[in-house]
């Protein structure tokens, strides 16, 4: 029997961590992720978990300690946001290239400046090429469910890559909503024990992590890393299948919502997807064939699968909650357009920047995106392909 609860996204993730009871958690507080180590350290203090919690003096140290612990053979995690993750930058690459399956609870927040504590995806999107798996959540339930699946994916011997489990700062991290929790023993059985093949503290088998690679070896290391990312696709689907057998909740690379026969569709990630579903339903009630594709897995990017799901769409909007300053498109827009190009299918694509620094996303603002798509279809005039949603231009 699932446990009916009401929790904020941060508390839900802290509970998932308690249920998994990892070995080591170095962390440094930063809004809006602070509550995750805060809740979890209280669970440790109350004897509900025996994870070694390391209060470090910066995020650079948090990721350094996580790398050390993971290399030693410990199941490791940290939590952070925004400039906290930015301070980890150098180490994100070290964790990924040393194939250390560290989990990061990333609560997405804008990067400065202007300084801002609210949600957008500029932190995670900046790290998209760091070699981490990246999984997004629409609500507290998905943030929890994704965290329960995280180590099974990251630690799989064919993957061995660190993983970011993302949720939207404040919008889901601080909103109390209904959720179904899984019983502790079931989570423990699902995640299992961490049994790495090679690690620093393995008795009698000397092992080296992080050596210098001359040009004659560096590229092979990167190629092997890319292979892990490639293999992750299959593993993500297998883990999701097992998770569904346990909970009845189904996950894949992305969710298609009323997309099958849609003429007009948007591609979106995170909490705004739920708001957009309400917009889709309203448009459908008016006889408009609207649909959406919510990306759950951004790294590895499921390009072929996404292209296949969008082939029949007439006009498409890609929604980027970050600015990539190339004057052309955001990171999600770039990936989707590239996928469609390779698949040889070409719906008209508009790319929107939206929701920066917590700019509110409403059913009405998403509806206005669909209205633009319909207008493009009717007039056959695409107009500007790169636009801002809900912004003052003067």
């Amino acid at each position, binding site marked *: 029997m699932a446990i009916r609860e*009401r929790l904020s996204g941060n508390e839900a993730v802290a509970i998932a961590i308690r249920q998994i009871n990892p070995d080591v958690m170095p962390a440094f507080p930063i809004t*809006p992720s602070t509550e995750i180590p805060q809740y979890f350290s209280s669970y440790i203090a109350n004897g509900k978990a025996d994870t070694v919690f390391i209060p470090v003096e910066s995020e650079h140290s948090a990721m350094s300690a996580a790398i050390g612990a993971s290399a030693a053979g410990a199941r490791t995690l940290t939590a952070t946001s925004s400039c906290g993750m930015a301070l980890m930058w150098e180490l994100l690459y070290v964790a990924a290239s040393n194939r250390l399956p560290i989990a990061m609870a990333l609560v997405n927040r804008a990067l400065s400046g202007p300084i801002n*504590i*609210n949600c957008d995806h500029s932190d995670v999107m900046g790290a998209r090429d760091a070699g981490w798996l990246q999984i997004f959540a*629409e*609500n507290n339930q998905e943030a929890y469910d994704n965290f329960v699946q995280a180590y099974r994916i990251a630690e799989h011997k064919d993957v061995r890559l660190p993983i970011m489990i993302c949720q*939207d700062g*404040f*919008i*889901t991290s*601080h*909103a*109390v*909503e*209904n959720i179904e929790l899984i019983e502790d023993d079931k989570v423990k059985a699902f995640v299992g024990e961490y049994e790495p093949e090679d690690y620093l503290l393995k008795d009698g088998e000397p092992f080296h992590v992080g050596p210098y690679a001359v040009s004659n070896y560096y590229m092979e290391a990167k190629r092997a890393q890319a292979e892990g990312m490639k293999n992750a696709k299959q593993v993500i689907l297998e883990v999701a299948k097992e998770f569904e057998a346990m909970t009845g909740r189904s996950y894949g690379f992305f969710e298609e919502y009323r997309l099958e026969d849609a003429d007009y569709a948007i591609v979106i990630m995170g*909490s*705004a997807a*739920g*708001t957009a*579903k*309400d917009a889709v339903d309203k448009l459908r009630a008016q006889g408009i064939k609207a649909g959406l594709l919510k990306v759950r897995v951004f790294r590895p990017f499921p390009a072929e699968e996404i292209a296949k799901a969008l082939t029949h769409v007439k006009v498409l909007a890609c929604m980027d909650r970050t600015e990539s300053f190339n004057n052309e498109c955001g990171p999600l827009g770039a990936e989707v357009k590239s996928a469609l190009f390779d698949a040889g299918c070409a719906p008209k694509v508009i790319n929107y920047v939206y929701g920066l620094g*917590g700019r*509110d*996303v*409403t*059913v009405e603002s998403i509806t206005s995106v669909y209205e633009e798509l319909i207008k493009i279809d009717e007039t056959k005039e695409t107009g500007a392909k790169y636009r801002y949603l809900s912004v003052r231009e003067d």
Partner: protein
Amino acid sequence: MKDLIEIRWHGRGGQGAKTAALLLADVAFGTGKYVQGFPEYGPERMGAPITAYNRISDKAIRVHSNIYNPDYVVVVDDSLLDDVDVTKGLKKEGAIVINTEKAKEEIIPKLKGYEGKVYVIDARKVSIAALGKYFPNTPMLASIVKVSGIMEEELFLKEMQHSFEHKFASKPEVIEGNMKALRMALSELA
């Protein structure tokens, strides 16, 4: 009750408007509803205007935006009436509940012609009488439950007793005062 009830809270930092919104989500959850309780975060500091929100529904809630056309508004501090457009977007079929020591007739002219129902309660008086201290959020919580009819009063009191026992496990001496504040507010609301 309608399928979906949306509530907006206006308070000042430190008065517990966010906590009240989360408590309301808690008690509504206890009666089997789908709930959302969330604050609008900015550069918080004591005394600055803050906003918090509730959605309460019989169906799962997917929308994650702020609330612009609430069914109900709760004003935890009447000094906000001069600074914040508290009735903005408020449905006229709904109501506004204001914490004030003033009479309703004095308050109504400040509500920019709002046509719906207006309720006032002196949460300071209630809180001082019941708790000996000024915590306006507990009386305001009882007031909005009564005005919105989200649940029966008896059920609400039972849920709150349960909730306080959990929240104040380390200082049970404050539970009775808080329960008294709730009961007083339910009867004093005008």
